């Protein structure tokens, strides 16, 4: 039913109008539900129905999107720390030399004592969550029916959450759809294909619209 090799690529959709009807890609598309769905979606994107255009929420959305575009087009504010008193000049000023020496000693001691310990650690690797620490994901659990159960603390102002899956080599395997509650049970078939077997690291990301509000530390799931 699905021919992965012969299917249209989205960037071919404009060009296909110029292809002859006998073109093998056209012939394939005529009989392939995936290609027909893509062509129909492309057509609908460019030609919304009058009902869609006249819906009462469209005007408000237009105004909100115009405001959004205006926001993202604003150039970033220039950094105040430019010129002769820039931060690196202050850092290397004579008065800072004792502090720099102390920092250098700390780094050397840290590298000598802690790095070998870290290298010999046997537990599963854990991704750290960057600057956001307020989102806590409880230990993930596999239920008797094989489903993955996740539960986390809510984050004020979050509109939705997303579960992100990583391999133990820290490669991102995919993520869930938008989750509106603070717990979810995902059947095996609902996980990204690469995350259905083997050990995993899982992180929850709290979102507000398109902005990331907070992210949990990654919790390991050993299977």
């Amino acid at each position, binding site marked *: 039913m699905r021919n992965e090799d012969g299917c249209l690529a989205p*960037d071919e959709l*404009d060009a296909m109008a110029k292809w002859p009807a006998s073109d093998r890609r056209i012939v394939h598309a005529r009989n392939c*539900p995936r290609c027909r*769905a893509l062509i129909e979606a492309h057509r609908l994107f460019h030609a919304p129905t009058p009902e869609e255009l006249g819906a009462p*929420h469209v005007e*408000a959305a*237009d105004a909100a999107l115009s405001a959004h*575009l205006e926001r993202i087009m604003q150039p970033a504010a220039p950094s105040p720390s430019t010129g002769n008193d820039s931060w690196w000049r202050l850092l290397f000023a004579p008065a800072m030399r004792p502090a720099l020496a102390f920092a250098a000693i700390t780094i050397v001691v840290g590298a000598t004592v802690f790095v070998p310990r870290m290298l010999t650690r046997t537990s599963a690797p854990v991704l750290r969550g960057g600057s956001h620490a307020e989102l806590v994901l409880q230990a993930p659990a596999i239920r008797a029916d094989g489903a993955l159960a996740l539960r986390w603390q809510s984050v004020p102002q979050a509109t939705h959450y997303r579960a992100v899956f990583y391999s133990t080599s820290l490669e991102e395997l995919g993520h869930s759809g938008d989750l509106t509650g603070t717990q979810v049970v995902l*059947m095996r078939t609902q996980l990204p294909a690469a995350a259905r077997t083997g050990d995993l690291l899982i992180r929850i990301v709290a979102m507000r619209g*398109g902005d990331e509000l907070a992210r949990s530390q990654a919790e390991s799931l050993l299977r």
Partner: protein
Amino acid sequence: MRSDEELLAEFRADPDGSPGRAAASELLGRHQRQVYLWCHRVVRDPERALDLAQEVLTKAFRSMADFEGRSRFSSWLFVIARNRCLSAVTAPSLLRDEEADPDQIASSGPDPAARYEQQVDEDALRELMMQHLDEQEREALWLRCFERMTVEDITRILDLQAVSGARALLQRARRKLRAALERREEGDR
């Protein structure tokens, strides 16, 4: 009115300057309604659609310098919107779909379909689709579950007479699939 290509050229000439940003803003603003309506078509919720449309426009702006011009700008935007929306919605299950199968809502007690779904691999379900469904049933179920199409769009793509026809087709396909699973389970005992 300047064409999309002219606005793109203006943006590329000075992407960080004021004229470049103004051109990008005009170009994206020209298509923002299409993006929003597409998102709304998929998620069917104005607030969620607005969030998604904002994400799509932000991503498009950040990636605009990478647009190679192999298609129309609007088609490139379509691809971004489609990919974002598909990842934002959960695909309807092959065995249950309350939106398309209203009779599923009325059922009470433990749902055997849910039990099957937990036990049966998606690949096995696809194999059963090939064995037990006819071409039209397979296509309808494929479009609904893997392409996440609305029942209305499936009606149009499959040239069916009415939306009720697509619903009936989907219901029949799911019933056949559930029956095939039941038979398979009995055979396994």
